[in-house]
């Protein structure tokens, strides 16, 4: 259902009036005179982008792990152990199965006593409670920005927003093919979807390392409201 819009006409009329003209009903998005964003990491190969991402992880207090599909399960298990084990919360995402993580999630973790909650929208608020007490949140990057070391996550009913915010630590799986030079390419991908009639996700997160603040004497504190630690696991053959 459409939302309400109030007071619009007087408000916009005043603006047009101040600008000394009538209200505009058509404005074409201009051809911009400058395009500096196209120059950044222009012509970089996928391997070079991985290197850039790896370097940037040092700046953003994020651990960088590189692996392949065959070893992903072990790598993930190891990072979760390093973070002190469960409880773990993940999205409900078929990619976990495609990436060969079924055995880990359905057999190994239960055996090892690692409590795993998979996001289940029919359980409503219970998901948030689980996320709030989780030690580790695991998500998958939809688009990854090499320059800034950013994972882009699109929310949906199966991909809860709070999985990446509430747990004490965050692990983001990054398929190598999802890496692009910078936010420019992500913005274009999103715009293409919009133009082809797709709805943008109600929440798109551009996440760059763990939460932090320099509000006290400009001293950096990592982990304020969101995760205190973060690891990116790049999967080379995906």
């Amino acid at each position, binding site marked *: 259902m*459409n*939302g*309400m*819009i109030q*007071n619009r006409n*007087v*408000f*916009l009329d*005043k*603006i047009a009036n*101040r*600008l000394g003209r009538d209200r505009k009903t058509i*404005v074409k998005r201009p051809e911009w*005179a*400058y395009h*500096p*964003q196209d*120059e*950044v990491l222009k012509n970089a190969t996928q391997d070079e982008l991985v290197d850039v991402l790896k370097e940037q992880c040092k700046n*953003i207090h994020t651990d960088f792990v590189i692996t392949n599909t065959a070893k992903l399960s072990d790598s993930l298990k190891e990072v979760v152990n390093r973070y002190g084990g469960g409880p773990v919360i993940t999205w409900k995402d078929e990619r976990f199965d495609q990436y060969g993580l079924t055995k880990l999630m359905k057999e190994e973790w239960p055996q090892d006593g690692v409590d795993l909650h998979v996001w289940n929208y029919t359980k*409503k608020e219970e*998901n*948030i409670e689980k996320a709030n007490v989780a030690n580790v949140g695991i998500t998958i990057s939809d688009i990854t*920005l090499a*320059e*800034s*070391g*950013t994972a882009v996550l699109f*929310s*949906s*009913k199966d991909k*809860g927003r*709070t999985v990446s*915010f509430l747990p004490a630590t965050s692990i983001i799986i990054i398929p190598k093919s999802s890496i692009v030079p*910078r*936010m420019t390419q992500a*913005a274009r991908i999103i*715009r293409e979807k*919009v133009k082809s009639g797709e*709805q*943008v*996700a*109600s*929440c*798109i*997160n*551009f*996440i*760059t390392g763990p*939460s*932090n*603040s*320099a*509000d*006290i*004497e*400009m001293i950096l*504190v990592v982990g304020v*409201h*969101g995760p205190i630690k973060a690891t990116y696991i790049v999967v080379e053959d995906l």
Partner: protein
Amino acid sequence: MAMKTSVEKFNDRVDKGLQDSFMRGAVSSAQERFQTRRLGAAEELGNWEEWRSHGEEIRQHVLDNLDYYLFELSENVSKRGGHVYFAQTAEEATSYIQNVVEKKNAKKIVKSKSMVTEEINLNAGLEKLGCEVIETDLGEYILQVGDHEPPSHIVVPALHKNKEQIRDVFKEKQGYKKTEKPEELALHAREKLRQEYLTADVGITGCNFAIAETGSITLVTNEGNADLVAALPKTQITVMGMERLVPTFEEMEVLVSLLTRSAVGQKLTSYITTLTGPKEGGDVDGPEEFHLVIVDNGRSDILGGEFQPILQCIRCAACVNACPVYRHVGGHSYGSIYSGPVGAVLSPLLGGYDDYKELPYASTLCGACTEACPVKIPLHELLHKHRQVIVEKEGRSPVSEKLLMKAFGLGASSPAMYKIGSKMASPVMSPFTNGNKISKGPGPLKAWTEAREFPAPNKERFRDWFKNRPKGGEQS
């Protein structure tokens, strides 16, 4: 708190600032760190001037077509089920938000940092309804717990406080027992605030950039507090200054790239989130109801006039961090939530000359702000324009100054007058002269000689030497 943060006179505020040695130490070292990071980030990016020009062209295009883009934005928010309220005044905005809050029977409200909500004094309006309003940005939380102190910097609100002072605030108000280590202080706030997010009825956010094409809003933080404010409570209200929007995701990206580099020297901050409408279908987290309040509050009066460029501002505080005057007087001297060069231009426009006529003079017109601004706002020129308006349109300059300037104008345009004046300077000043300097100057020179010597006028003016010297370029 409204935009105005003090009832004291400008000079008293400045004196207080100049005497606060902790604040001054904190500000100058913060300025240096910010500057180094900003310049480093710009250099690393490369083509910085081109980036600035691109930022400028985007902002100018939006302002020139503001009615169109706001229309498009509101249509698209509505299509996604969000409500849009256009508020011409602070009162309209506040009463709309009060209404929503009352309808929801809300008791607890969490907020993420938003200058415009400060500008319209929203917290007071909500507290009047009996609501508990909790700021979640760490810096703002500290100020709020410490008896609602005003912010002294638009990006780092508690810049003027040291960790010991913060520890004492938490100790006194919340029984905090640990040390002044920033990690421990932050952890304390984390624990307190986590509970608040989970139990709040309404979340209020600001908006860094709205995106017209999709009806989205963008929030930029390092702490992730805005995300929790928007994800957990059932109702989300976003308040934006009417100029804070862009056509599409692509322009948003450019401005965010400029913002994070200019504000904190980061390529991107930890959390950049675009939110579109309330939650959908089966979404578990996210608000059930979304309201976007678009605030004018004096901005439209700036449009179409000589001060329009200030509306290009993306609130990065690069100008604040570059300003040599802010460096010494600190944020509270400006008497406005908007401090530094941007504050000195904006506060008189939004708040009037009665309260803010001194601010445009609190500048040497050194241009450091203009050079730092990522969207190329000619800040020092706008400060100068204010002076012109104050003198020529408002006639507010002191009579003594007017006379002096008239005399100067006359002296500088009439050779006869100049000749008398400049020739007389040396004999006239001789009673005050001691050797080749003046240590206790009369009249306007007094302020100068309180801090430094003033040179005695030459006995022989340069022009006299030139006229009398042997011609033909022989060495004298």
